[in-house]
């Protein structure tokens, strides 16, 4: 298990990293926590010639309270997010999800930006970001652009990121006071990724957002459930709405969970998540 030969760069600023990316084009890969990229390189599934390590760029880490929204910098580690007071106060599901990723080592190395850019269909962050209505800030040498989480994920390991771009910030609007949110995860027992992850958030007026990880080849917001609920958060309404989970969505199948079983688990976990918001 050893990668092909690679040249390693450690820029100190975002601008420097972007220049290196620009310079090396498709030969380059960004290295953040390395907990998805390094395994792929060891298996020689990924063979970049140039590695640009952004893990140590001070400007790329941290969590900021910006009044009406929270900024999570792309280099923030899962563990850091799980224990952030700001996050716990406003976005319980974000803290919960962070705490359920992998194990302690993974959480202390892996970054939210790396996970989002990698877009593993079984990863936890993408669904949580969709439920949280996050916006991503993407930088390149020609400037910055913003994209909504819901538009960022395009398919299996596919995102809206182009060559030469770095995901730098995640903006999450602060939900109204009294909003409850949660993340419920049925884990794949070997990897501990999600077979089904359900992120759910309900504001005091019972406006609900629900999104799933692990169910389909990309994370998705489940408007079927949201519409069926129509603001009614009673147990019977939740039960009926949860039964609509992943309706009309193509669902993955593997040796841990067939399509039929995954659909069933999506319903159970939608119900469990929503019941926690009551």
């Amino acid at each position, binding site marked *: *298990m*050893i990668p*092909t*030969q690679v040249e390693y760069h450690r820029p100190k600023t975002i601008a420097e990293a972007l220049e290196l990316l620009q310079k090396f084009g498709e030969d380059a890969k960004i290295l953040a926590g390395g907990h998805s990229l390094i395994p792929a390189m060891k*298996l*020689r599934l990924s063979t970049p010639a140039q590695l640009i390590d952004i893990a140590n760029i001070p400007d790329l880490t941290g969590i900021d309270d910006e009044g009406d929204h929270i900024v999570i910098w792309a280099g923030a580690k899962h563990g850091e997010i799980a224990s952030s007071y700001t996050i716990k106060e406003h976005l319980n599901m974000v803290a919960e999800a962070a705490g359920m990723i992998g194990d302690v080592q993974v959480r202390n190395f892996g970054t939210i930006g790396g996970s989002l850019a990698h877009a593993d269909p079984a990863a936890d962050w993408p669904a949580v970001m969709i439920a949280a209505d996050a916006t991503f800030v993407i930088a390149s040498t020609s400037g910055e652009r913003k994209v909504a989480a819901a538009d960022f994920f395009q398919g299996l390991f596919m995102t809206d990121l182009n060559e030469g771009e770095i995901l730098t910030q995640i903006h999450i609007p602060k939900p109204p006071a009294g909003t409850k949110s949660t993340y419920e995860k*049925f884990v794949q*027992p*070997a*990897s501990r990724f999600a077979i089904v992850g359900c992120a759910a958030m309900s504001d005091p007026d019972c406006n609900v957002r629900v999104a799933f990880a692990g169910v389909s080849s990309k994370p998705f917001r489940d408007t079927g459930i949201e519409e069926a609920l129509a603001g009614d958060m009673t147990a019977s309404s939740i039960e009926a709405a949860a039964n609509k989970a992943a309706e009309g969505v193509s669902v993955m199948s593997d*040796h*841990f*969970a*067939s399509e039929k*079983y995954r659909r*069933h*688990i999506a319903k*159970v976990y939608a119900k469990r998540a929503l019941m926690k918001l009551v």
Partner: protein
Amino acid sequence: MTFIGKSVKRVEDKRFLTGKGRYTDDIKLPGMTHAVIIRSPHAHARILNVNTSKAEALPGVVKIFTGKDVAELNGVPCGWQVDFKNGDTMKEPPHKLMVADKTRHVGDAVAMIIAETYAIAKDAADMVVVDYDEMKAAINMREAIKPGAPLVHDDVPNNICFDWELGSDKAEVDAAMAASHHVTTLEFINQRVIPNAIEPRSAIGHYDTANDRYTLYTSSQNPHLIRLLLCAFVLGLPEHRVRVVSPDVGGGFGSKIFHYTEEALVVWASNQIKRPIKWTAERRESFMTDAHGRDHVTKAEMGFDADGKMTALRVKTLANMGAYLSTFAPCVPTWLHGTLLQGLYTTPKVHVDVTAVFTHTTAVDAYRGAGRPEATYLLERLIDTAALEMKMDPAELRYKNFIPAFDGVKQEGYTTQVALQYDSGNYEPVLKRALEMVGYADFRKEQEQARKDGRLLGIGFSTYVEACGIAPSAVVGALGARAGLFESAHVRVQPTGKVSVYTGAHSHGQGHETTFAQIVADKFGIPLEDVILEHGDSDSVAFGMGTYGSRSLAVGGSAIVKSIEKVIEKGTKIAAHLLEAAETDIEFAEGKWTVKGSDKSVGFGDVSLTAYVPHNYPEGLEPGLDFSSFYDPANFTYPFGAHIAVVEIDKETGKVDLKRFVAVDDVGNVINPMIVDGQIHGGVAQGIGQALFEGAIYDEDGQLVNGTYMDYTMPRADDLPMFEVDRTVTPCPHNPLGVKGAGEAGCIGSTPAVANAVMDALSPYGIFDLEMPLTPERVWTAMQNSDAVV
């Protein structure tokens, strides 16, 4: 006794916990090269062409060998012969070091790249182009034995390696079964599991041109046997010029008992290139090429009379050998499985029939428990199922059928229908204690209430007996073993009274350096730190049969005791001389020889020094205090125990939550309770792994679907409850320590207990049997398919 029976902390842990262990891959020899093996991505394919020219041109590549280069060499041999029922010889197709003609499983070795660095070898491996002509593979055993199935070896018809039977007269068993009041039948798969030692296999071959000597460093449980097989069967090397060293070994669970092709390859190739060569498996290679365990397809029937007394047991099993015969493969489903089918019950008629099958899969061989977990699973599942079917209490059903207590001294050992004589056993107390610990009566009330509340609680039992301390050499020889199974020990008392012990048993995690030292320190009455254990190096240890079958203490420890006794005997002569007394008037205790009834004594250190500075010395006595011994046991040892699992099943998801696990084991006398508990804990975790999580999945083309840790579920600490363990002590009557063996017990008892608990929880659904691993989807689907309203 100062040390025996005490939980002395493991002396080896200092180096392990501080990262100072020395494993094969840590060894760097001057001029060492690195090997990478190119492995077949296909289960069954003809090799049309292997093009190495581009790789050879890569700077830093030293040499590339392919299957053709080793075609004239012998392959690795099988160490156990089991012939067909009709007397025909077992089919033993060659297992070449690399294949030249066709590949027989995913991972079969095709070529070996040797380079200056590992990275270069990896890069070169990517440049080798192998053309394969893929063929249909025989994966499923039931299909593989049908006429017309793809053949793994052209000269093995129907892929059948051998068939075998054991037990009472078949017609009598059939008659007893037919006359039974009730017959419980189960047809199931005891699934294939992958051993997953934390240290991948690794081997360094070193041919020393100046001295014409070979050294093999290998991560093995069995260095001496590897040397014997390597020299006598594979490469024809002179054994006295070959040294095999197994340094620290990071686990094996059986998978490192066997002689692997890579070991022979690096030794042979190091002579070809006159430089040392290191090969270390990648994790993926471990999944693909370490011998796997279990993999039986079984039909088992147990008959009962109206009172619940067992009347007959009939078993028919297909046992997967994989593509090649691994070192001990044939004995696992036969002499280690069939012989345990009496269990701890008085069943009067037992018959077992086994067919060993080749398939295009990784070889299967001994894995923690080796045959006994398969036997125990079968028996214990039958009993709990019978209890459900006959509406009897599973604990009561066992009490009714237990063999009455026998200590092997006052009462004779118990002779079974399947070729064994148990040494000593007292079965009721283990079950009684386990029931007490779990609070059985209260549990049944709690379960009843839970069912009313719509919760699925279940309890499962397993009572087992197993065979350890393998084994009397003459007995195993008669059963087809091509090796003896004794053990050696050399106790060298140094002039200053410090003691070096060389044991043929090999530790790959068991704590021998502590347990064995406890025995030596106690018997000599010296401090623990005055004893050091050496193992794993064929140059320093006379001979060894390795560590497996929970044999190290019972056989290796007994050999040490023999040497200790010789030292004390000679020391008595020296002491008598020094104390000017008759030998018969001298007694040895607590580190000194004393003239009986006096305060005249001489200490262990003084006698040791005298032995090496023999100025004032008994006439005619040789100097020195240094003895070696070989111990060949009189019988196997037979530990036993009772395991109970309590589970709750999530009705909505089918997920099994293991809430409690109680294990009461009797492993004979205990030298170090902490180490024994640790062995039980580890074994229980592994057995639970098979019940709930683990299992190799091959697709129909023979691809290992879950050959990574992202896909193959290992049990983890947070999957398991705190284990509640206790023991009873029934000493082994035939070895000097009275010990039986504890390495595999946990793994043997736990699997059926968990499966039985799941079935008990599911009994309201009328579900009596499900395949392992009992994954959430499997359990949920069974509930879905049930008509019962729960």
